[in-house]
């Protein structure tokens, strides 16, 4: 191609043809077609819009987003921020968005781990392991997610009551009121330790970068892991010790008819999370498997011939190449998980769809309610795809 563009004959632009006002000119045809299509679609939209305006007037339905400042009066069982039924609709919707994000973020992290593990298991040389993984993937992918969610929710409801709660591990209770797990009583020292941990990660990253720069300069590899352990684990522990090492665990205990203390996970959230994670993991497993298989066998052999150890082989040779194949479909799986979290409405977890749906039933303002749902999901989808596109561009093959 470069030869062709270097040739001066090809650099010459074709002469411009004058537009003839005739059906034989394809530019005229293009303009006519575009006007026609835009006109038809525009008039359909205008027709629907005028009908809507007329219907809203006839049925005396208010329009606009004024209702957002009114008192909601709808109870919400679980929320990350403080919420009372006397708060406004706006705050209720914010609670819904946070609940959606709560299940989406946790779900994406867990599904990635589970899916990667199953995808690798499917490639295992052990017949039993690979067949079980294949069976899991096939069955999970062939059942509707909604059915799986209802199934998990039924199982959650079928658990014994709080008095006969199952206790698989000391301090963890499973009952039809949800899961109860021990929680740490949070104190400033823990916040400080968390900050120290983040600082440790940043310092490790900086250290690794400088070590790499030095290796580039003199060819000597430097060990990073001792400094990494010291910074990421040692620093937080030290901070925690200096601040008095508080360690008080809040154990859940049965008082009367329900549990007190500890951290609780509602049955709705648990069913939704389990359903989403197991379902999406089936799809992620296939993505991971395809990604690993896409790395040419010669790359593995060449890495072994260079004398790389197995860990190095995976980290330096296979993973960077597999990730290029994995990232784009992984993005769409993350987006699907986020959108699928809207099925929460079927099992009564109060995410944005559920709360917006209640709002539109209470206020009668269907258009605004649905616009809010769509806006929230479009924003989340666009954010995830922007982030993943950025990451994809970062790891993409750099060609000449």
């Amino acid at each position, binding site marked *: 191609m470069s030869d062709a563009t270097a040739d001066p004959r090809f650099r010459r632009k074709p002469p411009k043809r004058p537009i003839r006002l005739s059906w034989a000119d394809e530019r005229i045809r293009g303009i006519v077609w575009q006007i026609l299509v835009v006109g038809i679609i525009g008039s359909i939209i205008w027709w629907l819009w005028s009908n809507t305006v007329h219907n809203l007037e006839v049925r005396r339905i208010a329009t606009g987003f004024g209702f957002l400042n009114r008192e909601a009066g709808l109870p919400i069982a679980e929320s990350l921020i403080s919420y009372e039924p006397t708060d406004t609709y706006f705050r209720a919707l914010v609670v819904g968005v946070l609940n959606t994000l709560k299940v989406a973020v946790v779900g994406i992290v867990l599904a990635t781990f589970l899916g990667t593990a199953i995808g690798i298991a499917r490639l295992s040389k052990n017949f039993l392991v690979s067949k079980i993984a294949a069976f899991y993937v*096939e069955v999970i992918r062939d059942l509707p997610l909604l059915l799986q969610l209802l199934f998990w929710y039924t199982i959650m409801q079928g658990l014994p009551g709080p008095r006969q709660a199952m206790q698989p591990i000391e301090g963890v209770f499973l009952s039809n009121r949800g899961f109860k797990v021990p929680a740490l009583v949070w104190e400033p020292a823990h916040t400080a330790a968390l900050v120290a941990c983040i600082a440790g990660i940043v310092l490790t990253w900086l250290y690794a970068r400088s070590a790499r720069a030095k290796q580039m300069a003199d060819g000597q590899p430097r060990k990073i892991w001792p400094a990494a352990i010291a910074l990421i684990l040692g620093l937080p522990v030290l901070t925690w010790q200096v601040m008095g090492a508080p360690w008080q665990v809040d154990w859940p205990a049965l008082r009367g008819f329900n549990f007190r203390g500890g951290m609780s996970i509602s049955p709705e959230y648990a069913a939704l999370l389990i359903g989403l994670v197991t379902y999406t993991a089936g799809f992620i497993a296939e993505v991971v498997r395809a990604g690993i298989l896409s790395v040419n066998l010669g790359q593995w052999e060449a890495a072994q011939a260079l004398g790389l150890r197995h860990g190095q082989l995976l980290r330096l040779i296979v993973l960077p190449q597999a990730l290029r194949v994995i990232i784009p479909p992984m993005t769409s799986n993350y987006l699907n998980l986020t959108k699928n979290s*809207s099925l929460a409405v079927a099992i009564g977890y109060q995410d944005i769809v559920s709360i917006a749906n209640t709002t539109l039933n209470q206020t009668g303002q269907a258009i605004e309610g649905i616009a809010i749902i769509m806006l929230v999901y479009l924003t989340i989808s666009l954010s995830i795809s922007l982030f993943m596109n950025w990451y994809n561009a970062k790891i993409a093959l750099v060609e000449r």
Partner: protein
Amino acid sequence: MSDITANTPALPSSPPRSAPLTAVGPIAWLRANLFSGWLSTAVTLALGYLIVRAVMGFVDWAFINAIWSVPISPTGVAQTQACRDLHGSGACWAVVTEKHRFMLFGTYPYEQHWRPAIVCLLFVALYIVSSMRRFWNWTLIPIWIGTLTTIGILMWGGILGLPYVPQERWGGLPITLILATFGLALAFPLSILVALGRRSSLPAIKVLCVLYVELIRGVPLISLLFMASVMFPLFLPEGMNIDKLLRAQIAITLFAGAYLAEVVRGGLQALPKGQYEAADAMGLSYWQKTGFIILPQALRLVIPPLVNTFIGFFKDTSLVLIIGIFDLLTAGKTAIVEPSWQGFGVEVYVFVGLIYLCFCFAMSKYSQGLEAELNRHRRR
């Protein structure tokens, strides 16, 4: 130098080697695939134990301890005490025995159930015929039109001596199959037009198609279904009303169209540019080029992902449960609302799940087989 002759052995004192380990036969297979090392052996043993335990537990639950039927009291209420006494140690398949007609056909008049049953068989036959490559030509069009007309006659009735059954009474598996089949049959042509539009050189058409695809793909199907159920009546002029099932059908079609369009676009992009240029050089018009040269090749490239998308939409039709349309899953959920059957959700969902599994597994196997067949020329 001279002491090495042609007869000198290379390694003078090599002991005779033992025969190599067998590399064929069941024992070698076991050694290679199950017990290749201490870690592999440990994993095999642990997993084997867990599988045996799980299978035995499942057999106990599903067959040995299960109850297949319960007595019905004269008032028509099922006596499910025997099932409740199991406390989950055995399945109560009685709920399936008792309610399977309701789950499959919903509230369709009981004595007319043979009609939806034939409809389901017709749908399955239609799928099988469509999946045979022998029929991948124009004969498919009359076959589809004929079958769908027959299905319409059977479901509605009112002629040929069949009593009329209003649409509100339809339910169960036929609804799922109707939503999936009509949705995909309508969405597929739409998706081809949108995919072509998205690659068009005409800016206005391209923008419209990009907007449609990205907007639909950015929101969950539920929001579209809500839109169809609560907003759609506002869109239409006064007095004109569209049936709820049809509204859901429109929402599913629009949703499927956007996703299929992206799959088709993948095929259009994968086609070498030379094909487009050669068609132009032959002097073909845009529609001739598209119809004779581009689409036949591009669609063939994307058949496997298309079937995967079909599987996805077949499963997604279950979402109409949320807006209260009586499909298979809704029928299953409604079957256990009755007080005497409450608490037997697991059995019902296993039954409904098996039906979905049959359809999706068949499609998925078909797609894998087709992919292997279509890629045969690539293999050496």
